[in-house]
C-alpha cells in the first residue's frame, strides 16, 4: 500500500513518550480521511512490547527494527532506517521530542521532502495535509502544507491531540525488518541521572515560580552566608521549595520564568517561555510571575491558569482564570495543605 501513514514511536529508557500514542490517534483519523492505513515504526533494542502497545492504541500494523546497535538512540542510524521505511509513505508523523526534531529533519533531507515540526492541528486540503503550527513562540500561527513532495513529515506537539484509549483486544501484524544501519561513527558513552521528575511537555499540571520567589523579606539567611548573591540564591531556594512542595502534591512538573533561571535559582530545563519550553497543561499555577510577554507566549494555551502575585496589576492576571493577590510565601503552604487534604 503506497499511501500509508507511518507513525514513529519515540521511547527512552523503557518508556514510550506518551505523545507517540497521540500521534497514532492523529494517524488513525488522517487515515480515515485519506483512505489509507496506519503503520507504526518502532526502532530500538528489545522493543516488542512497544510494538504490541502501538497496535492496542490503533496502529494497523507495526514495522519493528530491533538490534543491539539501536539500543542507544543516535540520529544517523535511526534516520537511515526511518528514511528507508518512509520512502513510499504518504505521511510520516512523529511526536515532538528532543530526539525527533532532528530525526524528522534528517529524513526530510534523505527523501528531499518537507518537514513541519511542532504541529497543533490538522485538516485535509486537496489530498494533502494542511497543518497549523505556532511561530514566534505562539504569538502567531501559520498554516503549512507540503503539496507535492512525499512523504509529508510532521512532528506533533505534546498534548495538542487526544490520546486514544488502548484496546488490548486489537490485533495486527508486527513485521521485523531487515536492518541496513550503515557505518555508525558516534558512540554513546553514558547518561547523566535524570534531571526532571515530570517532563514539562507531558505534564497535565505545572506549578511555576518566578523572580518573586526570592523576595521573602521575613527570611534571614544563615549568618555564614555573607555574599549578597549567595543570600539571594538561598532565599530563592526556600521559595522554590514551596513551589516544589505544591508541585509534588499535585503530581505536577515544576516550571520557572526566564528571570528565575537567569538569576540562577533553578536549572534551565525548568524554563517555560519563548527561549524555554512551550507548554499547554490542563492547569498552570504561576507563583510570583509577573508575566513578561516571552513567558506568556510559552504558556498561554494552558487550559486553566491560576496566578498568585502581590501586584494586582501584573500582566499575568489578564490571562488567568483565577487570581489571588497576595504573598506567595503566605499562600503556598496552606494551598499545598488544602490540596493534600482534599485530594487524599
Amino acid at each position, binding site marked *: 500500500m503506497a499511501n500509508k501513514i507511518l507513525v514513529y514511536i519515540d521511547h527512552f529508557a523503557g518508556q514510550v513518550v506518551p505523545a507517540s500514542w497521540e500521534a497514532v490517534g492523529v494517524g488513525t483519523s488522517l487515515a480515515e480521511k485519506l483512505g489509507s492505513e496506519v503503520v507504526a515504526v518502532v526502532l530500538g533494542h528489545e522493543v516488542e512490547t512497544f510494538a504490541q502497545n502501538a497496535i492496542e492504541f490503533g496502529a494497523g500494523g507495526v514495522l519493528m527494527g530491533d538490534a543491539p546497535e539501536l539500543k542507544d538512540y543516535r540520529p544517523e542510524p535511526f534516520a537511515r532506517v526511518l528514511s528507508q521505511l518512509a520512502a513510499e509513505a504518504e505521511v510520516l508523523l512523529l511526536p515532538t521530542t528532543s530526539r525527533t526534531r532532528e530525526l*524528522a*529533519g534528517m529524513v526530510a533531507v534523505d527523501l528531499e521532502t518537507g518537514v513541519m515540526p511542532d504541529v497543533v492541528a490538522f485538516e485535509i486540503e486537496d489530498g494533502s495535509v494542511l497543518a497549523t503550527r505556532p*511561530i514566534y513562540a505562539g504569538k*502567531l500561527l501559520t498554516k503549512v502544507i507540503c503539496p507535492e513532495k512525499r512523504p509529508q513529515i510532521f512532528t506533533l506537539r505534546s498534548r495538542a491531540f487526544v490520546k486514544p484509549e488502548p484496546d488490548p483486544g486489537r490485533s495486527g501484524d508486527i513485521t521485523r525488518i531487515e536492518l541496513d544501519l550503515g557505518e555508525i561513527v558516534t558512540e*554513546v558513552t553514558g*547518561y547523566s541521572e535524570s534531571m526532571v521528575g515530570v517532563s514539562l511537555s507531558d505534564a497535565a499540571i505545572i506549578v511555576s515560580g518566578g523572580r518573586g520567589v526570592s523576595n521573602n523579606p521575613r527570611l534571614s539567611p544563615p549568618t555564614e552566608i555573607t555574599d549578597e548573591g549567595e543570600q539571594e540564591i538561598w532565599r530563592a531556594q526556600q521559595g522554590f521549595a514551596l513551589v516544589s512542595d505544591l508541585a509534588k502534591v499535585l503530581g505536577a512538573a515544576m516550571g520557572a520564568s526566564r528571570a528565575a533561571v537567569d538569576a540562577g535559582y533553578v536549572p*534551565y530545563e525548568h524554563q517555560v517561555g519563548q*527561549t524555554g519550553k512551550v507548554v499547554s497543561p490542563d492547569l498552570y499555577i504561576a507563583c510570583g510571575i509577573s508575566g513578561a510577554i516571552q513567558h506568556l507566549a510559552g504558556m498561554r494555551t494552558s487550559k486553566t491558569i491560576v496566578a498568585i502575585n502581590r501586584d494586582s496589576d501584573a500582566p499575568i492576571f489578564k490571562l488567568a482564570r483565577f487570581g489571588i493577590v497576595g504573598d506567595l510565601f503566605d499562600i503556598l503552604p496552606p494551598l499545598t495543605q488544602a490540596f493534600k487534604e482534599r485530594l487524599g
Partner: protein
Amino acid sequence: MNIVVCVKQTPDTAATVTVEDGVVSWGDAPVILNPWDEFAVEEALRIKEAHGGQVTAISLGPEDAKEALKQALAMGCDQAILISDPALAGADSLVVSKILAASINKIGDADLVIFGRASVDSDTGVTGPQVARRLGWPALSLVAAVTALDPEGKNIAVERMLDECRQLVRSPLPAVVSVVKEINEPRYPSFMGIRKASRAEIPLWTAADLGLDEISDSAVTWPEIIAPPKIETEVEMIEGETPEELAAHLVDRLMEEKVI
C-alpha cells in the same frame, strides 16, 4: 580549529508580533541576533580561544539582514558572510539547509559547525541537523556541554540535553553541533568589538556564488499566517480574609470547575 557559526536575525523576543493580510510585523521593535545563536557564537569563540583557528559567522537572509552578523563580529568572530538572493525569499528548511551546506563547503576546512537550537521566529529546530545530513557529518543536537575536544585526534565529546536526562556522546570531527542555553553565558561585545564590527565589510554571496544556478523549490509553503484566537478570560479574583481561607476558596473553585 576552524569553526563556522550559522546565525539568524530575528525580532526582539520582547516584541509584540502581529499579522495583517499575511504580512508579519513587529512594530518598531529592534532586530537582534537570534537569542539561541548567542550561545553558538560564544561557544565557537571559547573553542577558538582554547585551540586557535578561525571563526566565521554566516547568515542567510535579505540584503539588509546584517544586524545578527554585526553582533557576531562584535562578540569576536573573525569574519562574517551574508548569503542573500531574491530567489531565496520564502525558502523552507530543505532549501536553507542546502544553501548553508554549500556555503560551509565554499568556506572550506571547517572542523566544526555550530547552530543555536532553533530560531525564535520560525522555531523549527531542524536546520542544524539537516545541514549535518547534507554534509554527511554527525549531528550533535541540543548540546549542553562540550566535555572534551581534541583537534589533532579530530574528535569531540559532548553532553546532549534530552527531555529525560543528558546523553554523553563521542564523535569524530568534523561535526555539526546545535547548542542550548545551559552551555555557556554569552559575553557582551566589547567597545572595540563594536567599533570593529561597525566598520567591517560583510561580503554578500548569492546562490550563483555557491555554484547553485538553480534553486530548487521549497517543499513546504505557508498559505496563511494568522493571529491565535484571543483568549477570552475574565479573571475571577479569589477572596478571603486569611491565607488559609484564600487557599481553601481556590481549591473549592478548581474542584467545582472540575479543573482538578
